[in-house]
């Protein structure tokens, strides 16, 4: 038995007030009689004891006030939560990529699974368990249940994903587990203290660290280079604290273009050149040396095609035309780039088709191109008969880039020039976001999508004054290059990062086959696009009738792949043994409602007593 809000016992002063009222008034009521002839004066001893002789309504009111005071003070009873008890346990699992790291035959997730099974087995019969997972986001794998066999099956079905576990997902998972009597957190690294604090848990979680420090090799990035022109590069990182042999193989066009072994220095990166490639296409790099984590041993890239194609750059600014042409040639030297001023008639052959048209601050009238990139899109002109493809809804004098696909939130916003705010059609998706300088309203800065007449790209900020060549605005250049690459890439091949949302134009129900062989059907939206989020590194196949698209998902996260990184300097506070018994052995059962009901009944009884007394004495009021 205890009190949740002992400070509210202050309301017990009402009892003192009641006693005072009764001693003053009700203990000696004055009644008027026809004559004192009929009454004898009370003897002295009786008169003295009269002060303490209180009637039934007093005791009833005192009881009601006491019950209400205890109710507002939060009186609760402690009951054993043993057999048949109602204790709930939350089992929270980290499903980040590192949980798939193996040490011998067991992965870190397997260790967590075994620890959880021991907890379930040792719990009293009747306790319920919920299973909550988190990686990219939190999810409930199992609602609270008491069926041990079902819980075991759920635990067995848990699989690690090839994404980094985010603190936000951990926070959400802990919030989901907030109502449980005990929370067991299984992860390979301690949770940030601020995340635990933000979750505002009533019961501190019991952290179960799984896995031992292990060496790991990872492919950080791959640059296929320009076929027949420049070398490609693969960056390999050794997360181990000792030198690590690495056998690397690179395949392109169905044959191995590189296969070699070398030693990588401890906790260092090594750049491995290869090529040049003979042709464009998908390039796959693979570390053949066995290590703890396999997800970051494969990586894919797309080499540009060697076929000569034409590109058009239209801009009223000659500087912009020159910058964009240089960038196009840097992305694919095989492009034949034509630049022109849109305000000059017959500046280029409009009848000729282009693979890509880059349109800066102008419309696309008269241009035939398989892909179009609108840079600083022209606002809709009044009187124009055709509705704008990309409606401009506003503009800012200076924009700041804040997010970029594949990178996430930038460490510092990149200040850009003027930008036009475009209301994206549903078939486009933003690849970078920004806002006006000093403003919080976000709008897309770059976007791509497929319209009925071809691929469409959009860069919302102006690139005049050699903005793209400014080293302080490197992210603007990278976003531009990424957009151009996506526009000129083959439409049936996509290279994406795990965890990133993927939108593929398919226009029909599509079978998605994951790298582990699992398949599921996807339904296109009104824009004819199917969307999914690859959580495993590897190759995804999308098939809809005769159409097929291949998506290569790359995984690399410097923090998650570092299996030695957890030095655990800030180990989370273990579950306080002093605090545990309260919830481990007892359950708090507040009885405030019961007390309030008792008070109501007592008041009702007092009303009956007073009413009968009033009727007996024919008083006109109670």
């Amino acid at each position, binding site marked *: 038995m205890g009190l949740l809000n002992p400070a509210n016992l202050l309301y017990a002063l009402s009892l003192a007030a009641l006693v005072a009222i009764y001693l003053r008034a009700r203990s*000696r009521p004055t009644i*008027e009689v*026809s004559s004192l002839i009929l*009454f004898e004066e*009370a003897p002295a001893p009786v008169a003295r004891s009269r002060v303490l002789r209180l009637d039934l309504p007093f005791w009833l009111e005192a009881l009601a006030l006491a019950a209400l005071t205890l109710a507002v003070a939060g009186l609760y009873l402690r009951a054993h939560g043993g057999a048949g008890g109602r204790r709930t346990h939350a089992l929270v699992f980290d499903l980040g990529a590192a949980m798939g790291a193996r040490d011998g035959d067991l992965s870190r997730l397997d260790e967590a699974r075994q620890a959880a099974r021991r907890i379930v087995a040792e719990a009293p019969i009747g306790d319920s368990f919920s299973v909550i997972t988190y990686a990219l986001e939190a999810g409930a794998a199992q609602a609270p249940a008491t069926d041990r066999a079902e819980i075991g099956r759920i635990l067995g079905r848990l699989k690690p994903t090839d994404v980094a576990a985010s603190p936000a997902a951990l926070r959400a998972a802990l919030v989901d587990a907030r109502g449980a009597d005990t929370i067991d957190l299984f992860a390979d690294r301690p949770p940030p203290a601020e995340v635990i604090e933000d979750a505002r848990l009533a019961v501190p979680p019991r952290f179960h660290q799984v896995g031992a420090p292990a060496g790991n090799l990872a492919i950080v990035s791959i640059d296929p280079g320009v076929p027949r022109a420049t070398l490609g590069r693969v960056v390999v990182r050794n997360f181990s604290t000792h030198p690590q042999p690495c056998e690397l193989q690179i395949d392109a066009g169905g044959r191995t273009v590189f296969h070699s072994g070398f030693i990588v220095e401890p906790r260092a990166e090594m750049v491995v050149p290869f090529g040049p490639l003979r042709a464009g296409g998908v390039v796959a790099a693979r570390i053949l040396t066995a290590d703890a984590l396999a997800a970051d041993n494969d990586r894919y890239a797309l080499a540009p095609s060697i076929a000569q194609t034409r590109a058009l750059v239209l801009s009223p600014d000659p500087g912009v035309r020159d910058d964009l042409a240089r960038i196009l040639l840097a992305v694919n030297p095989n492009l034949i780039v034509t630049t022109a001023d849109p305000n000059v008639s017959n500046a280029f052959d409009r009848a000729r088709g282009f693979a890509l048209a880059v349109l800066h601050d102008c419309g696309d009238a008269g241009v035939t191109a398989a892909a179009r990139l609108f840079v600083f899109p022209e606002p809709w002109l009044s009187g124009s008969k055709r509705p704008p493809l990309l409606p401009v809804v506003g503009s800012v004098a200076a924009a700041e880039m804040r997010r970029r696909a594949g990178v996430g939130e930038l460490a510092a916003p990149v200040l850009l020039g003027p930008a036009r705010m475009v209301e994206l059609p549903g078939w486009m998706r933003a690849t970078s976001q920004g806002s006006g300088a000093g403003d919080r309203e976000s709008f897309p800065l770059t976007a791509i999508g497929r319209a009925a007449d071809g691929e469409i790209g959009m860069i919302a900020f102006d690139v005049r004054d050699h903005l793209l060549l400014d080293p302080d605005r490197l992210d603007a250049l990278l976003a531009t290059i990424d957009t151009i690459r996506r526009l000129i890439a083959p439409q049936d091949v996509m290279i994406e990062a795990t965890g990133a949302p993927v939108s593929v134009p398919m226009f029909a129900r599509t079978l998605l086959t994951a790298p582990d062989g699992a398949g599921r059907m996807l339904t296109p939206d009104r824009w004819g696009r199917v969307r999914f989020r690859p959580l495993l590194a590897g190759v995804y196949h999308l098939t809809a009738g005769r159409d097929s698209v291949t998506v290569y998902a790359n995984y690399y996260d410097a923090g998650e792949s570092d299996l030695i990184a957890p030095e655990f300097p800030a180990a989370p506070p273990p579950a306080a043994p002093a605090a545990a018994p309260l919830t481990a052995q007892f359950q708090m059962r507040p009885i405030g409602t019961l007390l309030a009901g008792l008070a109501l009944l007592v008041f009702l009884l007092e009303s009956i007593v007073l009413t009968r007394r009033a009727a007996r*004495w*024919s008083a006109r009021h109670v």
Partner: protein
Amino acid sequence: MLAARAFEPDFLRRLDGLMMQARRTRAPRAGRRIIGRAQGSGIELEDFREYAPGDDLRFLDWNALARLDDLKVRTFRPERQIEITVMVDASASMALPAADDKLGFALTLGAGLAYIAMSENDPVRIAVFSGHGGKARFESTPFFRRRESYGEFHAFFDTVRCGGETRLAAATAHLLGQRRPPGVAIIVSDFLVGPNDYETALGDLLAAHYEVKAVHVMGDRESAVDYPPGSYRVRDCETGVMRDVSFGPREAEACRRRIAAHADALADFCKRRGVMYARAFGASRLDDIVAREFPRLGVIA
């Protein structure tokens, strides 16, 4: 209000067959000292006596003289009327306990007795009395003789309010001060006064050759002493005197004994002085009171 019952047909129907018997003469010379004012010689034969010189020869019994040769004179009951005053106590004590409505009960009884008295066309009036600051309040209706006038009391009842002290002696002194011929005085009161007061009041009326009838009224709850147990500070409604009392079953029984003793003392005094005395304890017993207590007041069927 309970007094309204006095004018209900059912109640009056029960009283229709009743009449009030007044004691006639207690004079040393029978047939001469009468109660009330003489209205002539009358026609009802009362007695025979020896002729004395000077007697009116018209009353000489000639038949007796012829048969017996004896001179006898016939005497007759004189025609007379008796003024009846019903005095109802309207002091503050008649208002408590409020649920008992003692004043209404007393007015009902007084009106009933007045209705009975009207059966012989005697002049009847109803008065209420109390005391205020040493002065007596005495308010009365005019004399009514016929039952057709009985309804006139209704308007008077509506004006009666309780208040003041019970001043029996002052009320009777006020009545005697009116210098009316002695008649019948019916006092309806709770008699919650000291013995000196009611003995003085009743004694004065008797001394003035009034025929006195006393109706002792108490309420149902008052006579049953039905107070919840507890400690109280009781206040006399007439004097304002406070008294601390502790009340319980034992005290209630003692209280009932005090009521009985007080009523017995009054009854004993009335018996000794030839005052007709009746108890009317509880309005709920009205029918029983009419049947059993009214005869004690000389009411006959």
